[in-house]
């Protein structure tokens, strides 16, 4: 469904262009789940955002490669085509739920916007919104309709983001570190919700995280990114049980396990300035 081939992206700074992605290739099949793991600054978010050209143009420079989605190269797609894909076909949820929702509009108006744009055929928009809020596990959704983002907790906000993203029935959901800003208990609930919804809707998910621990049981495939490149790609279980690349091994070693008595977790000396 989605095939990224040798994607190269740089950021122009006053002292020249700093490369961010140096030839990334990935593909996501229909209904599949792919996890992209890597430390911050490894280019995983850049990849995610590049897919529907969400990177702000002035600093970002597309240096090469292609992103084909359902046969079309999104890098060359016209604005109108791109707009249909954004939200309609590929939806996003982001890391900071508190700032990702517009503070001055109610939940209903922000979700209604999505539905009326991509599914004009829906007659009773409010009912549809309530259905999706319920689907993502928000208690008594009808009452929440007219609330404003600042009236909800972090977890609830992220649930609204998910409901909003899914309400347009996308074929691919890109979750850019969806649980990083949440505390651990909420993290698990959000990930479980994601897994159930993906199963029910049969949509593909690209999960971006720096935390190896959460991808087990969620993603069948995983790609490990380091310094703008994919250093390892494979089945999750297989990569976890026998990582090839030294960086992947170091990453896995850092995961704390129950009953582990080592005093300090091993750290990786980071090269990225």
């Amino acid at each position: 469904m989605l095939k990224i081939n040798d994607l190269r992206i740089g950021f122009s700074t006053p002292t020249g262009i700093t490369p961010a992605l140096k030839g990334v290739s990935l593909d996501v099949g229909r209904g599949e789940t792919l996890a992209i793991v890597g430390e911050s600054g490894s280019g995983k978010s850049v990849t995610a955002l590049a897919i529907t050209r969400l990177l702000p143009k002035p600093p970002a420079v597309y240096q090469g490669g292609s992103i084909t989605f359902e046969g079309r190269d999104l890098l060359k797609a016209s604005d109108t085509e791109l707009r249909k894909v954004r939200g309609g076909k590929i939806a996003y949820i982001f890391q900071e739920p508190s700032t990702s929702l517009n503070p001055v509009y109610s939940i209903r108006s922000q979700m209604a916007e999505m539905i009326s744009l991509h599914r004009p055929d829906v007659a009773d928009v409010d009912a549809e919104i309530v259905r999706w809020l319920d689907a993502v596990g928000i208690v008594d959704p009808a009452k929440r309709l007219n609330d404003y983002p600042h009236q909800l907790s972090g977890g609830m906000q992220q649930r609204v983001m998910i409901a909003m993203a899914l309400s347009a029935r996308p074929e691919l959901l890109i979750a850019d570190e969806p649980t990083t800003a949440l505390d651990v208990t909420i993290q698990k609930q959000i990930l479980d919700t994601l897994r159930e919804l993906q199963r029910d809707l049969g949509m593909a998910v690209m999960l971006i995280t720096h935390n190896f621990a959460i991808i087990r049981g969620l993603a069948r495939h995983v790609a490990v990114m380091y310094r703008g490149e994919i250093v390892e790609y494979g089945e999750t279980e297989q990569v976890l049980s026998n990582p090839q690349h030294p960086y992947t091994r170091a990453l896995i070693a850092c995961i704390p396990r129950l009953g582990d008595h080592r005093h300090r977790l091993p750290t990786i000396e980071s090269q990225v300035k």
Partner: protein
Amino acid sequence: MISFVIRRLVLSVVLLFIISIISFFIVTLTPGSPYPWGELNPKISPEVKANFRKKFHLDRPLHEQYGLIMRDLFSGNLRSIKDDRPVMSRILERLPATVALNLTSIVISLSFGTLLGVFAARYAGTWKDGAGSFIAFLFIALPGFWITYVVVVALVKGFGVPILGTHSYGIEFPNALASGLDTLWHLLLPATILALGGIASQSRYIRASMIESLREDYIRTARSKGLYEDVILLKHALRNSVRPIIAGIGMVLPALIGGAVVIETIFAYPGMGRLGYEAVLERDYPTLVALNFVVAALVLLGNLVSDLLSAAVDPRVRLE
């Protein structure tokens, strides 16, 4: 919400009281005497002057004078020294003209300012943004009285257009529309010139806050939802940038009334700015104190309105 309004009103009343004291003593301490006739008018005998001072309690000590002025102000029969008429009716006579002028100029500066601001923000960083801010500063830098004269002379010399007062009297109007348009002209011309500075500063504010809003995460979310750039700009970004402007409205009023003096004098427009200017020259203490009172009340009201408005616009603002 109600408790907020009440608390603000009480605070405003206290503030008004303090302002009236300050304004009274500043005004009365200014040297010069408030005789309505020429000081060196050979016909006026000292007895007449003494009698006049007695009539307006000017011979009493200052604090007593203040007490009397306040008593008269609230009992409604505070009289102006210039024409012995109740001060409130003198001010209220000019209120409609002043409100019309200032309100129109606020509307002009807000609407055009916002338009320019959004335009500049949309093309931020490009030459269009540069041109936008250059034009904006062009207007701010123009000295008010200078540009007013240039425009007035150009219009009158070039097109023989009437510019004085609120209506061209003494002319046969073919129909009501012509007369109505004439009044509109006498309102829009001074209001536009008064608003020039406002348009510029308004566009600067909106551009700055628009650029700031466009950097927020929810814009990226909106874009990821596939919305049109226009919708993202006008719906999501603009709504968040409106708050600083609304907060500014409260501050704009005194500047307008003070600033309008030059415009009102040149256009012979019967506004409160001119009333204040003439009252200062004639040392008409009652009118000045009352005028300061009214202006202060308008400003505090303006602040309250702008707070309420910003609460309406931005739900996060809780009126604690």
